[in-house]
């Protein structure tokens, strides 16, 4: 006893203080996203042979243990990708639903129906100014709704483009961060799993952030760094990285504008095309290139294209009948060729469809008679009203059925995204909970550890005091 006791007390004090520090750090990071609890692993110091016996020399706090497990991290990344994809889907499709104003009693379907009904009513009262005005009024409401939809879809598409651009900026920023962490790990000559464990936490958090944008694959290198791939395309390799760029191209034949992702070199030259595979960017690109693209040629469902097609067919079919008709004051044997909608004969679409000003300025000009000078002749009006029930109007459907199809497809897409999001959120939460059973901080457990290390620290202090007293006694011997 003597100096060795003092030494043992010292190692114990240091070890318990270390334990207190680690515990305190766990407590302080209990709510930190991505933090994995740490544990101070204490071990017995090497024994000393003395007087025929091995005598202990105290305690060593030689290892800081982290509980991170790659299996959970990988599964959570996949869940995050799926979840972010569904979330992005839902956000965009909710906007589409809002633009369409459905379900409602004043949706486009009702306005189209009212428009054709007004022709039926006019056919019953061909020379009645009131019913002529009603046709104009109902047609205006319908075209206004088409304009509103077209404008809404265009704005939503631009919004998606901005979100995708922000997403690409985020991906580049995260890739830079990951390369930077890799660099710090290599420069400090320590592996993240053995050295600064917090760097591993920070890196995993960044990878999880990245996983929101696409499928992420991670490969751990021997030097502690990681290579990160975005659905198979190299994004981060050790300290180096490739940036990605969103490229918008216009098809010279169809005028269709689409976006795609490419990796770039340091000079900004395009390298490889990136298909994120899933996640936010994948879905944003899908909605920009298909769902909200009025010029879409993919063959998949496009709500914008469908609405434009519907407007185009309504204009074309109504005009086809109208140009062969006569207004109330027209004379002669040859019809004046007055279209009901413009532009004519150019195709109209949801954004351009308008009523012919010749008709809005004078309702007598509505061409609804097949012969001039017969105000009771309602042949053209009957032809137009019959369009509402024409099963070959568009895609072997009536206008109402075609619009119902649009609603059904958009509704089912939204429903799929909602169910998908609900399920993926549940899976993600479960995975996070499972991971937290291993790496998460439990405050009660930490409180116990705190007491444990505190008490041990107090006891070690007593050992030092005792050693001090013993030494004092020895030093004062003989005085």
């Amino acid at each position, binding site marked *: 006893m003597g100096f060795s006791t003092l030494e043992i007390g010292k190692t114990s004090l240091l070890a318990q203080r270390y334990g207190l520090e680690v515990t305190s750090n766990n407590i302080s990071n*209990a*709510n930190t996203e991505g933090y994995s609890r740490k544990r101070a692993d204490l071990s017995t110091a090497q024994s000393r042979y003395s007087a025929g016996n091995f005598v202990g020399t105290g305690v060593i706090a030689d290892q800081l243990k982290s509980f991170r497990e790659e299996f959970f991290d990988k599964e959570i990344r996949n869940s995050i990708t799926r979840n972010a994809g569904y979330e992005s889907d839902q956000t965009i*499709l909710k906007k589409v*639903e809002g633009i*369409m104003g*459905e*379900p409602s*009693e004043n*949706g486009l*379907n*009702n306005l189209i*129906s*009212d428009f054709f*009904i007004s022709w*039926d*009513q006019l*056919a*019953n*009262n*061909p*020379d009645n100014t009131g019913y002529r005005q009603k046709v104009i009024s109902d047609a205006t409401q319908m075209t206004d709704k088409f304009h509103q939809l077209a404008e809404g879809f265009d704005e939503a598409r631009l919004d998606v483009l901005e979100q995708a651009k922000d997403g690409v900026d985020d991906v580049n920023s995260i890739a830079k961060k990951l390369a930077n962490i890799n660099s710090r790990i290599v420069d400090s000559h320590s592996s993240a799993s053995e050295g600064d464990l917090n760097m591993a936490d920070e890196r995993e958090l960044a990878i999880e952030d990245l996983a929101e944008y696409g499928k992420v694959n991670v490969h751990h290198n021997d030097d502690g760094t990681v290579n990160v791939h975005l659905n198979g395309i190299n994004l981060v390799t050790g300290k180096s990285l490739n940036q990605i760029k969103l490229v918008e191209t216009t098809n010279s034949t169809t005028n269709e504008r689409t976006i795609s992702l490419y990796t770039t070199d340091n000079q900004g030259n395009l390298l490889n095309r990136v298909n994120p595979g899933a996640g936010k960017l994948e879905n944003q690109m899908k909605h920009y290139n298909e769902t909200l693209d009025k010029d879409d040629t993919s063959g998949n469902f496009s709500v914008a294209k469908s609405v434009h097609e519907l407007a185009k067919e309504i204009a074309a079919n109504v005009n086809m009948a109208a140009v062969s008709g006569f207004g*109330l004051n027209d004379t002669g044997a040859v019809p004046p060729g007055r279209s009901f909608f413009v532009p004519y004969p150019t195709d109209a679409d949801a954004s351009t469809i308008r009523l012919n000003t010749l008709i809005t300025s004078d309702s007598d000009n509505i061409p609804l*008679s097949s*012969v001039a*000078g*017969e*105000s*009771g*002749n*309602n042949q053209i009006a*009957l032809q137009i*009203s019959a369009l*509402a*029930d024409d099963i070959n109007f568009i895609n072997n459907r009536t206008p*109402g059925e075609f619009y*119902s199809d649009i*609603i*059904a497809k*958009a*509704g*089912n897409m*939204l*429903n799929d995204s*909602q169910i998908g999001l609900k399920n993926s959120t549940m899976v993600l*939460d479960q995975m*996070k*909970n499972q991971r*937290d*059973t*291993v*790496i*998460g*901080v*439990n*405050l*009660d*457990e930490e*409180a*116990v550890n705190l*007491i444990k290390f505190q008490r041990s620290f107090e006891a070690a202090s007593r050992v030092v005091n005792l050693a001090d007293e013993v030494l004092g006694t020895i030093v004062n011997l003989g005085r």
Partner: protein
Amino acid sequence: MRVSTNSIYRDYSRNLNDSQFKVNAENLRISSGKKNLSIADNTSDVIDADKFRNQISKNESYLEIIKSNTDRLQQTDTTLQSISDKLQEVRSFVVDVSKTSTGYNHFAIAQSIKGALEDIVSLANSDNNGDYLFSGTMTSPQNIQDANPGMNNMPFEIEQGPATPTNPSGLSVVFKGNNEKVNVNISKTASEEVNTTAEELFGPGGVEVLQKIIDVYNVVAYDSSGNQRPARTLLNAQELGELNTLQKDVADRYDEMNIMASVNGAKINRLDSTLDFLEYENLRLDEYRSAKEDTDIAEAAMNLKREENVLQFALQVGSRINQLNLFQFLS
């Protein structure tokens, strides 16, 4: 198994959010009266409700069309009846002329025949809500005027022309409309002809029977040399023969007109039955629509209560989570 503090709060937060979302959804269902708040809630119901609503609107439009055309057909019926009565009157005059032994009142009868003709022409010019009943698709005064400048703007007009050996009075009736049919839709799958044309009414050219009446007038009012028949002059055998033939022609048209009145009546009946059917169908469709989109208030209120209870318990659980930790015991 370890439970981390984070996962406790994560689960709590998710449950709380879910519960609040459900309470809010039930609240919206009750306040809006609509079962489906989004097209994603029940897409097929949303579409069906839309379809039913549109069909109801269409049927309401057909009902309006039927009501206005029933009115038109009823007016046509009344007018046909009046014209028919006038034709019968003309026939009676012919019989009177044939039976008289003195010829004393031939001139007065001739004037009555002419008056009946004018009445028939006036009836044939009847309109419904501004649209002529028997002028085909040329239903407006403007149409008639434009096609026949210099004449009046009615579809039938008695014209005074020069006297001829065959038409000593010089009278003729001009029809200025056309004989086109007017069709209107009375349901999604049915349409109805709602006009009677001049040819159906008065025979070929739309004036044949009217011309026959003028012929009757000529025979009664004028003698064979084309002079006004002197008073107390009896008709000779040839004139009586002519009169008999003309009377028969008028009688034939009278019969035709009665048939037409029956056809017209049948159309009114058809419109009535279609109206009944559409009104019933609308009731049925409205029930379907309601089932597809309206909130079942009792069910929604129960759901709301249930979700409120869940939320309340979730909040209580939350407050307990906050209390139960070792630090609280230690402090």
